[in-house]
């Protein structure tokens, strides 16, 4: 375990060495940002709306007491979405979508000698391949989380309109009532850390792939599993530190 941790830290150090040519790396960063951000927008939008709607319905179901104002469902749905569902669930989904793609792409490049070809040319392969993915991860995941929060809360509103468990106006009152900006800061810190975890762990798994197609698949699986575990661990740590 310590051997792997050491290799991971050394790889990260190599990844952030001075680029050979900034313009070439910048183009790569832009490409990765589009792939991570725009490419994941569809799936993040869909899960956010559904989770937001389902959460609101469940909260409304649990608030059966006439002494509790119905608008509280909006407040609980808002905070749950901002603090937990949007950053964590979105990141777990992104670990599957983006992380597996990173690990298998770099793993395939390793087993087909494309990484060797980069090194022969004098290119810092970890820098060229990994740093743009990490930069894309730490910038795009927070943006996706913001989109997810918005759509999640919007999903709750839709659920109110369709089911009528809570009136849409009560829901809006609840969403606006007692908003604390700290929750958004916590969500963004989580998103940045999760973006880093997904990109770096999956890139590490891909970079040290040995063998052929079977091992590329195994690297992708390991990358996703380790990323998910680390996301949940980091979620606990950040939540306990910041709240």
């Amino acid at each position, binding site marked *: 375990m310590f051997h792997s941790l050491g290799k991971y830290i050394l790889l990260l150090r190599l990844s952030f060495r001075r680029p*050979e040519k900034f313009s070439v790396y910048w183009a790569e960063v832009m490409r990765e940002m589009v792939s991570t951000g725009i490419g994941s927008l569809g799936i993040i939008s869909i899960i956010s709306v559904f989770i937001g709607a389902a959460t609101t319905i469940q909260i409304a179901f649990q608030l059966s007491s006439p002494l509790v104002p119905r608008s509280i469902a909006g407040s609980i749905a808002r905070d749950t979405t901002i603090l937990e569902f949007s950053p964590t669930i979105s990141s777990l989904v992104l670990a599957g979508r983006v992380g597996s793609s990173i690990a298998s792409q770099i793993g395939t490049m390793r087993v*087909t*000698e*494309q990484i*060797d070809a980069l*090194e022969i*040319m*004098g290119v810092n392969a970890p820098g060229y391949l990994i740093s743009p993915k990490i930069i894309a991860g730490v910038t795009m995941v927070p943006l996706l989380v913001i989109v997810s929060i918005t759509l999640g809360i919007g999903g709750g509103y839709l659920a109110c309109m369709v089911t009528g468990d809570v009136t849409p106006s009560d829901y809006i009152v609840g969403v606006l009532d007692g908003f604390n900006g700290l929750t958004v800061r916590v969500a963004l810190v989580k998103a940045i850390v999760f973006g880093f975890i997904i990109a770096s762990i999956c890139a590490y798994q891909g970079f040290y792939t040995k063998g052929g197609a079977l091992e590329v698949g195994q690297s992708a699986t390991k990358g996703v599993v380790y990323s998910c575990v680390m996301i949940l661990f980091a979620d606990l740590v950040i939540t306990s530190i910041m709240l």
Partner: protein
Amino acid sequence: MIEINDIYKTFGENEVLKGITAKFKPGKNNLIIGGSGSGKTTLLKCIVGLHEPTKGQVFFDGENFTDMGFEQRVPIRTQIGMLFQNSALFDSMTVEENIMFPLNLFTTKTKEEKLERANFCLERVNLAGKNKLFPSELSGGMKKRVGIARAISMQPKYLFVDEPNSGLDPKTSILIDELINELTEEYQITTVIVTHDMNSVMGIGDHIIFLHEGKKWWEGSNHEIAHTDNKELNDFVFASKFMRAAKAKL
């Protein structure tokens, strides 16, 4: 001039290279031959720095490449072109982008100059007009030629080639050999080729190193190889009936 001095390479308990010392002739085709598992590719990877030798040194024009750090190696690496066994073209890039990739990173040429160089390299390997194709759209022989075009794009001083004929039909193999030979002569490149193809050995083997069980077993030219009494080399070169018949006619 490339020199290797007492190269050892061990993977775990397995000692693959056992003290190989050799000099590769400048401006010539230097072939490393040997049976499967004899350490040919490992030796090539030790020379270019993809593997670090367990012991021994590699010198490029007298400079100790083995002891250099990553940054120090870059000026030598920009003088190296390499053709990999499976071509190792970047899948996400077109043929043109593959060839221009090292130019983008290591030169200050304008886009037009880089494009001109890419077109020249493609013409040189008889693939003019194939700029916009992706590697997945190319045949095995075409991939090798694009690999060669990428390898020569930086006008290298040294060309390393790993199994240039693997997976190719005999006619295409000969074309690739001829192309490598022409480039070596034309640009006076020091070319190091790992192969077990006897057509290559007899056709373009200016200087041949035969590896056996991780050691340098024999060294000479393609003219000398037919007359050697080295048993292991004879077993390797004249393994087929055809080659034995050809030797009998000499």
